[in-house]
């Protein structure tokens, strides 16, 4: 929609989100323009990518993402996705996308029944997505995880279909939480919505231990750059 070359990233702020500033900083460092979007808004500003950041929206009370999916902004996010717009859910954002039905499956408690904050290795299983185009197929990325509910589940039928479609985009090399298919990141059928438990925004600077997160964030920006250059196909 926008003809500007600079991709515009909107980060949704739910009450209880806490990684929104980190997302903003990392996307900006990669050259994006960013805008914070309050969850109570009913429409999206002019943005190319919507990010649902990590945190504890509504305290994660009842279930992670259960209350957040009813935030007014989510209707607009659904429309954006339905129109082919890109949506990235990180950690709590992934959980919200599953609750909202924008991604298949659900996230259960880690099998170890503990919160885990640690570095993880993710293998890029599908480098041919809007979110992974900067990666080599099979490339292993070092990105931290930080969650209690990252144990992804989906029914067998959907799972087989997703595997066949290449929707299991990122796999843990050592499964930390019991997630089916060792899934760390998955997309929807259309490939325009990615949910991932690891935090790429925390791994965009060597001083913090890794720059591999920039492969993911940068891929999205590349995609947006391409699509805006080629007349904004979304």
């Amino acid at each position, binding site marked *: 929609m926008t003809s500007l070359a600079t991709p515009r990233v909107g980060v949704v702020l739910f009450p209880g989100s806490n990684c929104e500033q980190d997302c903003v900083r990392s996307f900006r460092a990669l050259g994006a323009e960013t805008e914070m979007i309050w969850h109570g808004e009913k429409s999206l500003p002019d943005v190319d990518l919507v990010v649902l950041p990590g945190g504890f929206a509504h305290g994660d009370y*009842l*279930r992670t993402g*259960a*209350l957040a999916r*009813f935030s007014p902004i989510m209707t607009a996010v659904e429309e954006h996705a339905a129109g082919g717009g890109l949506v990235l859910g990180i950690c709590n954002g992934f959980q919200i996308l*599953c*609750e909202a039905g924008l991604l298949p*499956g*659900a996230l*259960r*408690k*880690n*099998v*170890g*029944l503990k919160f885990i904050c640690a570095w993880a290795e993710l293998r890029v299983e599908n480098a041919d997505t809007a979110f992974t185009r900067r990666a080599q197929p099979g490339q292993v990325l070092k990105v931290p995880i930080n969650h209690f509910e990252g144990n992804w*589940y*989906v*029914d067998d039928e959907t799972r087989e279909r997703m595997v066949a479609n290449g929707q299991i985009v990122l796999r843990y090399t050592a499964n930390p939480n*019991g997630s089916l298919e060792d899934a760390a990141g998955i997309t929807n059928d259309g490939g325009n919505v990615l949910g991932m438990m690891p935090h790429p925004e925390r791994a965009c600077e060597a001083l913090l231990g890794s720059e591999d997160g920039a492969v993911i964030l940068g891929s999205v920006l590349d995609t947006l750059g391409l699509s805006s250059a080629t007349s904004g196909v979304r």
Partner: protein
Amino acid sequence: MRFTAEVKVMLKDGISDPQGQTIERALPALGYTGVGEVRVGKRIELKLDAEDADDARAKVEDLCDRLLANTVIESFEVEIS
């Protein structure tokens, strides 16, 4: 009329329940034998206005479908009183 609803939300059969398993594993050390099939879920109590018990049940079941349970992994039961 004001009704009281009791909602039980449990993981569906076939979905592994690490919380239940952990409790089960801890039991022998505490001296409990012969305890098994431990499953841990949620119990939610609430009060609501409704025409009658059926209306109340319908409302609460709708609430469960939309909010209180995640039917991808959980099943629920509602009791109205």
